[in-house]
Each structure stands twice: as structure tokens, then as C-alpha cells.
């Protein structure tokens, strides 16, 4: 009896020792996402959730929320909130419409020639940055709480969207512009033709997937060896290999699925690019560090010589630019700039961030966590659609998921 209990205790201890350095919260929501995917694979009629097209849809239908979630998590880590992003996305969609299409029937814009697609996108993002400067000015330099500034912005920029569009829609957009929301990398399978590869699979998609898998492994190994060289505690070897194997298998699986549909969506490439950039910004640049410092303890940040106003200002400029990108994505996808675009996006983005483990008080959160949080909501909505669950039940369930995710967070912290 005694020996048994000591034995089981030492076994538990060894497990606990092996789990040292494993971030349970981060890995937890990741596992929740996988669980959700498996659940819907089993419940949807004829496993519709696992079809290649559905994977493709999941990405392009949630891309604009995920882009917003990246900016939102930064704002929330600093201890603010941004309620205006949906309206800003609509306004920028309208701006992009003016820049790219220049509707002739509208007055006052005749002087402006339609820009090429890239000029329109660039112009839209610049205007988004200016919108961010406006909000950042009030938050950082006047000292009005972001909740108020962006609540005003929510109305203000919805109004500007309506004004700009003069209550009509603008469209259709040029094909190149639409591609950012709807396009796929080498959809025509040019690479297949060159190498005589079977038509069922998009060869470009397979090659890109392979590159991504290699890149993930190289980055993980390099980081690990760097830490070991400096004598830091690293994740247990078994866990490290297991985790990255699972991760890359999932990447490979998704890539394989996408190769059987239209190939890799441009939206996905854009998202991966943004996640890599912003994860680096948050973890490895002084700006990112200052955001955590400001959110973690504002007073200490001020007394450490951090220019808090500057940090807050650029945070909102960045949010404005990302909201603009989101607006471009949705306009491209709908092939029309409409005044009602982006309605309620701010709430989806904020939910993603909190499901992804950010703290309401600020100081805590990650870009990848927010992306996973956004994907959980996306998979949930997609799966329920495929199961023909009504919007009433969908909203109820999404609300409960948000509440329970944060409750779990609070509970697990209290246990410590």
C-alpha cells in the first residue's frame, strides 16, 4: 500500500517534471481547436467539414477577423480596447472603392483617376494609418480612455463610410484587387503543366506546404539550440519533437487538402506573413516589449524611461492600418464596397483575443493565441453551419464559449 502510493507519487512527480517548461494554457487552447475540428469531422454529414473546399472557405471567411485580432491583441495587452475596427474596415473599404474603381455616377471625385490595384491597396492602408493617428492622438496625447475614443470612432467611421459611399455600393473591382480576398496561388496549376504532375493536386500548393514544414522545423530547432547554448531550461525533448511533429503534420494536412481544392489562398499567405512579423514584433522588438510593460504596470513603465504616449500612439496607428487591411480583404471578397461591411467585427476580434488567453487588465496575451482563438470561433461557426444549426443557437453557443474560456483562465489562475 505504502510502496504503491510512493510509487504512484514518484510517477506523478516524473510526469510533472517532464511537463516543466510546457505552457499549458497556450497548448490548451490549441488542443481545444484540434478537438473541435475532430468533433465536427465526426458530426457533420458525410464529414463535410474535412473537404478540401471547406478548408479553403474557413481561411478566406475568417481572414479579415484574424487580421483584426492581431492588432486587437496588441491594443488589449497595452490595457486598451478598440471598438471602432469594424467601422474603420467599412470606411476603408469605401476608400478602396473610390481609389480602385472611381464610380463615375458619383459627384466630387472626377478629378481622381482610378489607381492600379496595388496603389488602391497601399492608399487604403495609408488612410487606415491616418485614422489610427486620429484615435491614437486622443488616447495617447489627450488622455481620453480608448473605450470612449473608439466608441466614438465606431459611430464616426461608420458615418464616414456612409458619406463616402453616398448610400450606394461601389463595384465591381478589378480582378487583381479581388484576388487578395478570393484568389489562390497558381490556381491554374501552371507548375503541374511544367512538370507533368497529376491534375488532382495543385503542385505549387504542395511545394509551398513542404517549404512551410521545413521552415517550422528549422525555426524551432534553431531556437532550441540557441537556448541550450545559453543554458536555459527548454521543453523536454520528447515533448518538443511530439509537439512540432503534430504541428507540422497539421500544416501538411491542411496544405494537402488545399492542394486538392483551388490551391493556397492569398489570404492565407498574407496571414502567415502577418503572424510571423507580429510575433517577432511582440517578442523581440523593444516596441513589443514596451507594450507588455505598459500593460503590465503603467507606472513602472513610465519610471523605466518608456515613452508611453509614443507607444500608445503607434499602437493605434498600427491597429488602423490592420483594420484597413481587413477592410480591403472583405471588400475584395465581396467584390463591392458596402456601407454595412464589417458590422460587429470588433466584437469577433475582441472575443478571439480573450479566448486566445489575453487578460482584461492588460499585460498578457499572444498573437498566436489570438489567431487560435479566432480559429476556434471560425471552426465553431463553420461546423454549426454544416450541421444546419440555426443562427439563434449559434450565437448562444459562441457566447458561452467566450464566457467559459475566460472563466477557465480566471479559475486556473486562482488555483495557483
Amino acid at each position, binding site marked *: 500500500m505504502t510502496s504503491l502510493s510512493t510509487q504512484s507519487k514518484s510517477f506523478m512527480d516524473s510526469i510533472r517534471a517532464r511537463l516543466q517548461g510546457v505552457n499549458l494554457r497556450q497548448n490548451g487552447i490549441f488542443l481545444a481547436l484540434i478537438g473541435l475540428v475532430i468533433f465536427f469531422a465526426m458530426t457533420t454529414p458525410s464529414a463535410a467539414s474535412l473537404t478540401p473546399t471547406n478548408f479553403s472557405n474557413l481561411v478566406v471567411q475568417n481572414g479579415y477577423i484574424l487580421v483584426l485580432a492581431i492588432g486587437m491583441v496588441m491594443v488589449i495587452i497595452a490595457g486598451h480596447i478598440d471598438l471602432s475596427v469594424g467601422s474603420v474596415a467599412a470606411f476603408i473599404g469605401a476608400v478602396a472603392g473610390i481609389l480602385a474603381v472611381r464610380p463615375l455616377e458619383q459627384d466630387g471625385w472626377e478629378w481622381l483617376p482610378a489607381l492600379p490595384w496595388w496603389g488602391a491597396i497601399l492608399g487604403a492602408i495609408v488612410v487606415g494609418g491616418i485614422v489610427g493617428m486620429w484615435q491614437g492622438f486622443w488616447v495617447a496625447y489627450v488622455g481620453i480612455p480608448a473605450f470612449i475614443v473608439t466608441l466614438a470612432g465606431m459611430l464616426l467611421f461608420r458615418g464616414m463610410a456612409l458619406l463616402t459611399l453616398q448610400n450606394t455600393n461601389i463595384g465591381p473591382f478589378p480582378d487583381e484587387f479581388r484576388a487578395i480576398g478570393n484568389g489562390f496561388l497558381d490556381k491554374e496549376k501552371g507548375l503541374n503543366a511544367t512538370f507533368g504532375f497529376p491534375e488532382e493536386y495543385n503542385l505549387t500548393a504542395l511545394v509551398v506546404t513542404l517549404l512551410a514544414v521545413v521552415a517550422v522545423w528549422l525555426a524551432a530547432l534553431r531556437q532550441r539550440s*540557441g*537556448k541550450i*547554448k*545559453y*543554458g*536555459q*531550461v527548454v521543453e523536454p525533448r520528447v515533448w518538443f519533437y511530439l509537439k512540432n511533429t503534430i504541428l507540422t503534420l497539421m500544416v501538411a494536412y491542411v496544405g494537402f487538402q488545399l492542394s486538392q481544392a483551388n490551391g493556397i489562398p492569398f489570404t492565407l499567405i498574407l496571414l502567415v506573413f502577418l503572424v510571423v512579423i507580429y510575433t*517577432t514584433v511582440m*517578442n*523581440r*522588438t*523593444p516596441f513589443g*516589449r*514596451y507594450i*507588455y*510593460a505598459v500593460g*503590465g*504596470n503603467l*507606472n*513602472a*513603465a*513610465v*519610471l*523605466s*524611461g*518608456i*515613452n508611453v504616449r509614443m507607444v500608445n500612439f503607434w499602437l493605434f496607428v498600427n491597429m488602423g492600418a490592420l483594420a484597413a487591411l481587413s477592410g480591403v480583404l472583405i471588400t475584395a471578397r465581396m467584390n463591392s464596397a458596402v456601407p454595412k461591411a464589417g458590422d460587429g467585427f470588433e466584437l469577433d476580434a475582441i472575443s478571439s483575443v480573450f479566448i486566445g488567453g489575453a487578460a482584461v487588465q492588460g*499585460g*498578457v496575451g499572444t498573437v498566436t493565441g489570438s489567431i487560435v482563438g479566432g480559429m476556434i470561433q471560425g471552426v465553431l461557426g463553420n461546423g454549426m453551419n454544416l450541421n444546419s444549426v440555426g443562427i439563434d443557437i449559434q450565437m448562444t453557443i459562441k457566447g458561452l464559449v467566450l464566457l467559459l474560456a475566460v472563466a477557465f483562465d480566471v479559475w486556473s489562475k486562482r488555483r495557483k
Partner: protein
Amino acid sequence: MSNAILEMRNITKTFPGVIALDDVTLVVERGEIHAICGENGAGKSTLMKVLSGVYPFGSYSGDIVFETDVKKYGNIRDSEEDGIVIIHQELALSPHLSIAENIFLGNEIKRFGLIDWNRTNQEAAKLMARVGLQEEPTIAIKDIGVGKQQLVEIAKALSKRVKLLILDEPTAALNDEDSAHLLELLRHLKDQGITSIIISHKLNEIEAIADTTTIIRDGKTIESLHMKQEQVSQERIIRGMVGRDMENRYPDRHPEIGDEILRVENWTAYHPLDTHRLIVDNISMNVKRGEIVGLAGIMGAGRTEFARSLFGHSYGTKISGRVYKNGKEFKAKTVKEAIANGLAYATEDRKRFGLNLIEDVKRNISLASLKEFVRFGLVNGNEEFKKASQYRESMNIKAPSVLSVTGQLSGGNQQKVVLSKWINVNPDVLILDEPTRGIDVGAKYEIYLIIQRLAAEGKGIIVISSELPELLGICDRIYAIAEGRITGEVTRQEATPQKLMTYMTMEKGKN
């Protein structure tokens, strides 16, 4: 003895790692004004929190006997029911509510479940008359001065049928006229049979008003003095407060003092909100290389405010004065500029102003000097880890790893993280504000060694502390500050606790 209203017998209260009260006994006679004296951190406030039930029965040992019965208070409400009311230094009033509302807050006069405003205001007016407050009961608290707010607190206490009124530093924020009025009121209440306990640093007030004075030092009762019979002087109280024995709690000091490194001339600053209130009043001082200079003063004397206004104007408005480093004037209007000019300031309140408690040790240490680790725009986390680990070694920070969350460390180890952070910006002058507050004795000794080491490296060190023995134990020279002014300067050889305490309690225009 038989007429005691309150007896606190053998009270002992411990916090993790610290004994705050050690076998304290306090006897308060019915109808007297009883003063409690002691340095900051001696345990006065803790004792009052035990009495009022903030620290509930069971969290301390010993007995509280109030009016012949042993009491077991679980919270403030219990003690207030018995007529024990405590008025804290930070007044507990709601600024936007009226005087009458504040007086009856939590104790509303109701009729059929609704507040009876007529009676509320009428009763409030009666209570206000008793404390000599001439205002409309309906005026908002934020629109009357601090002195009158203090009176509202007392009126509130009277509304609860107070028998024992406890005032914690009641005159600290008051001007002379308001202070005099308050003291007069206490005498008046005494005549009406209300017993008072007053905690104060202002010895002339105690001398004037108290019947008995109990002195507390290092969590122990030292003595109770009967003011009238024994003809107790301020000097006598000071001697009790600081004690005569100085144990060997400080490392030996062999200073090597060089040229002047920092000079401050005519430094003046005003309160950030109340911009007419002078907080730092024309301070001039200097520090030499390798020298440890102390700033002594009671709480609220303006020590921290002076240091922070100097450190990149991080406190105050309308700041004027000149600062010289190595004889050359420089201006530092932001913290960033102050750091760039070789200043560092380690705060008195590490939890609020010093550390990001939810972040790990490594990132706290690197925060003020992050640029050092940046190459090609990116922070090298591995180098950062290495540097932080070096500090963990050299400062003896007891944490499993520099990746541990700072909030989980003990106070002493958190303080070492703060010091590491500021040492890493490689300052010429280091201002340490209460560097050993809330730290156990062993860790204090380590901190003193670190301070000496930094001085030996040729840095100028300014130590702000409320503990006189600490300043006397580690400093080469000490300035005393009272009411924002420097009231005295003594060298290590000349310094005695009595001398410093005299300077520290000097009031404007009275000495």
C-alpha cells in the same frame, strides 16, 4: 488601572517573514487622549488594524479587552458596533457625495425603506455643529478643504456613537490653523467623555494634547509616559522612539570619497494637481563619488517627491532649479533623459512603481536598458537571459530561474530585481528610495552590502529612508528634510538620532 476603557494584552502579529507586533501591551484610560509614537514601520498602524478588526480575531495572538469584556472582532463593523472608530490618514470619504450623505454612509436614516433626506440633513447639521463645521450639509465633499473633510470624518464617527476614537496622523495634511482647530475639538470631545487615541509624528502636538504617550519601537512597546505627572519633553519622546542601543546590523564602512558628482541647486516643485501647494521647497544638495548620502524625513516630508521630480520630472509641476553632473549643468525633463544623464531612481513602492509583477525576472531587469540587447532592431533574448542570470548570481536573487514570474518572489528578492534593473543602466548617481522597506533583516544586510559595493565603484548614492538607524548605519552624510525643505545636514561623525529627529520635526517659521 481600574478605569481602563481598553486593554490590549500581549498582542503578537506576524506576517510571512516579519514579526510586526511582538508582545505589545497598551492600556488606555477612560476619557483620556492617548498618543502613540514610533518611527514609520514601528507597528503603530498594525496595532490599530488589530484593534479595529481589519486583522480579524485569530490572525493575531493576545487579548483585546474593551470595557471589561474580551472582544473577538472579525471585521471593522464588529468594532464599530462597540463604538471603536478609526479615522485613517487617507480619508475614507466619497468625493462626489454630500457631507450629510458621507456622514450616514452605510448607516442611512430610512423611512419605509427609503432614505429620509430631511432627517438626514437635519441630523447631519447637528453633528456638524458638534465638531464646529460651518457648511451646508448638502455640499459635496470635493468642494470643501482637507481640514473640513477631517471634521466630516469625526462627525461620521460621532454618528456611530463613538466611545473610542482613533486618529491616524490626523494633522499630517492640515495647515496650522486647521490643526489647531482639530486639537481643540479633541479636547472638547474629551470633556464630553470620548476617549481618543492619536497617532502622530508631530511631537509638539503630542506634548500639547496627550495625557499619556505610548512609544512603540520595532513592534514592541517601549514605555508609557504620563505626560502631565512626569513633565515629559519632546526630547524624552525622541529618545524613546529611536532607542539607545544600536546593534551590529550594518556592515563596516570604509568610504573612499572623491570629487563631487552631482549637485542640485534651488530645486523647487509644486503638487501636480493642487498647483499652488509647494512640495519641494528650494532644496540644494550634493553627492560625491563613492559617497552614500542619506535623506531623512518623516512620511510626507517631500523626500520621494524631491527624488522623483529630479528623476526626469516624474513628479510635480512648475519644477525649477539646476542640476550639475561633474560640474556641468544638464537638463532632464523626461525619465529617458534622466537615465541618459546617468541618473537612476529605485522606487519606494516596488509593487506599484517598480516592477511588472506578471512578467518574468529577466524582462524586469532588462526593461530600463533594453536598447543594450538590441541588434538589427531585434532583442537578443539569449543575451538578455545571460545578463539576468549573472545578476541572479551576483545579487543572490533567490528565484528558481530568471524566467520565474517576479510577483512570486519574496519582498527582498523583488527589491534585488529592482536594484539589478537600475544597476544595469550603469548610472553615475543612484537614488534608492526606502531600499529595505518590508524586507527581513537578513536581506537588509545583503542590500546594504550591495549599496556599499556600488559606492566603492565610484557611484554617488542617495538613500531615502524612514528608519533613522538605517541612515546612521550606512550613510556618510545625511540631510534632514521637513515640509519640503532641507532643515539640517550632518556628517556621519556628528549624526545622532536625537539631532536628526529634531531637524525632521522642525516646522516652518517655528524654529
